[in-house]
């Protein structure tokens, strides 16, 4: 199984590549935030929400590209008054970088392109891993149907509670 650190390592490498990069988020094309790192731990954002929008915006642009027959989408750049967002395709994922306004855009693009292939490889490996229900009951469940029931009941009970 892929070490959590594997994603952290690549994302950290990206964040260190340019002084103006504040945050790096890796999302998939369904809106899920897979991993993220920040330059400042106090940079307060709702990462899952930001990731969901980043993914939706990128995928919408991709659709637009299909509608207009523009080929594959590599990078989406968003320039704001007080910062910038770059989102780059990396296989099944989208790499999203949030930066200061005076960041070196060329360098960010270069870093995104350079690291995309490594992340793509990592992601393919990660996504091909079987998803296991995290409780030990789930593992036992493979051999015993009853404990599977128990595990399921447990998950369901959680849902009934709220």
């Amino acid at each position, binding site marked *: 199984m892929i070490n959590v650190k594997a994603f*952290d390592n690549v994302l950290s490498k990206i964040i260190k590549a340019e002084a103006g990069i504040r945050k790096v988020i890796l999302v*998939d094309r369904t*809106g899920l935030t897979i991993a993220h790192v920040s330059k400042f731990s106090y940079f307060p954002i709702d990462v899952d929400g930001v990731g969901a929008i980043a993914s939706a915006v990128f995928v919408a642009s991709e659709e637009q590209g299909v*509608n207009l027959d523009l080929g594959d989408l590599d990078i989406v750049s968003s320039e704001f008054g007080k910062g910038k967002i770059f989102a780059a395709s990396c296989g099944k994922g989208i790499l999203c970088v949030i930066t200061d306004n005076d960041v070196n855009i060329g360098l960010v693009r270069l870093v995104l392109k350079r690291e995309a292939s490594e992340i793509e490889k990592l992601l393919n490996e*990660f*996504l091909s891993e079987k998803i296991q229900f995290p409780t030990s009951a789930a593992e036992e*469940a493979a051999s015993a149907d009853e404990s599977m029931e128990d595990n*399921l009941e447990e*998950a369901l009970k959680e849902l009934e509670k*709220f």
Partner: protein
Amino acid sequence: MRKDSQGRIHLKIVFYGPSLSGKTTGLRWLYDQVEGLTKGGFTSIADPTGRTLYFDFTPFSASGRVILDAYTVAGQTRHKSQRKVILRGVDGIILMLDSTPEMQKYNQESVDELKDFLGDSFGKEVPIVVTLNKRDVPGALTRPEMLSGLGLDGFPVYETIATKGIGVKRAFQSIAREILLKQLYGK
């Protein structure tokens, strides 16, 4: 069903249905009122009057390791492409229909569109729970009137009033249960 790098399991639930049928209201109610589930933020892309332009999103955590990522779609006809994007990777659908008689043809359109998008996985790989919303409108269609001809036989149906939260929680629990059953047993 997907996982993140922390090993948490994510299930994607989408509120689908025609424009103004109460999808955002339902999700908002869950977000505001539900206790006992850990909630994330509420992300929304809406116009200044509050109508959804793209989607709403909020994650609910059932056990810390299982996260229900709940989305709504924008219901207006012209947002079809956006709805297609939001359906990517969906694990289960809450189909929210409008009980107002004049809206029935839009219910039909929405159901047809969803069937078109999901193809063979409609109600199979992707379970569906139907909510008949706005049960409190004057002259609301009866349950059989709404369901006849929509091809939704065999799916769980809940009567809801999203503005008051009536039935919303049960529908949400129901789709989560359907998804878990599907993922664990493949039923």
